[in-house]
């Protein structure tokens, strides 16, 4: 129980990443693979935010004078995740666009039926 309490965020983040990796590796439908990419992104964002957290931390914003700066969480991962979320949207959109084109060309979304993508 103690192990779970201490590591719940690690488990959650890597759970999401591994669900995504499994979807990318094992699924055959292209849309499901793209959803898997979304899972990986979410998991990585959660992991980065969690790495920067400190116990009883507050947001790194000086909303009024005299806030204890020792309790502020790490701002660097937050800055990374901030941009990563938007980039994630662009990447998923690009992937969906490619999937649309593949469907137009091969009339199927099944990866194993698309020539050149077999494994």
């Amino acid at each position: 129980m103690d192990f779970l309490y201490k590591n719940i965020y690690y488990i959650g983040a890597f759970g999401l990443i591994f669900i995504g990796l499994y979807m990318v590796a094992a699924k055959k439908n292209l849309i499901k693979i793209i959803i898997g990419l979304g899972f990986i992104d979410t998991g990585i964002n959660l992991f980065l935010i969690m790495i920067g957290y400190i116990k009883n931390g507050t947001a790194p914003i000086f909303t009024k004078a005299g806030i204890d700066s020792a309790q502020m969480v790490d701002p660097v991962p937050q800055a990374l995740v901030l941009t990563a979320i938007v980039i994630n949207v662009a990447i998923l959109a690009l992937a969906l666009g490619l999937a649309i084109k593949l469907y137009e060309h091969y009339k199927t979304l099944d990866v194993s039926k698309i020539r050149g993508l077999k494994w």
Partner: protein
Amino acid sequence: MRKTISFILLVILLIGIYYAIAQVHYGENKMEVSKHYINEGLKENGVTNIVTSVVLNYRGFDTLGEITILFIGAIGLGLVLFGFETKRKDIMPASLILATGCRFLFPLILLLGIYIFVHGHLTPGGGFQGGAVIASGFLLSYIGCSKKRISEKGINILESLGGTIFILIGLLGLLFSGYYLSNFLPKGTINTLISGGIIPLLYIVIGLKVGVELAGIIYKLME
């Protein structure tokens, strides 16, 4: 077969990651560099939101790279979907509730997005989040009142203008104080709207660019 192989690979990866981060405990000390950002950031930039100060000043060059990635993503989508024709079925007109709600909410959502990125250096939020809010407003207007939309030309002009202004502000920093994207404007009073030198300007530019770019992506995918 495929599933077992991927499962075995994932288990190996999991064991490797476990040994890699077993020593990193949850919720303990920060990095040295973040301590510097937190303790000195307010003095050095005059911006109360430390995340903003990291995004646009200490790592402004990274941010330039990131909006470039976004730009390339949008361009790539346009390239991939160029000349793509859907056999368009007749679109059902939006219901009365959706149409009215769209007309009512669209300007409010735009206003909220603009508020978020104008106040990005004081409160939580900033250009990327405000841009995403603005794009959600365009999504609503696409669904609700599908007659009205901004032209593709307008999207392209705003997008390129945003990127150019960002780079120009960086070059002005190079001109005035010797390195790219340096904070050359006066810092102003801390915790007021006009403070923090170039940071609010950069966030306004980023907000416009991200909002318009995401709206363009939405339009391209919907067409």
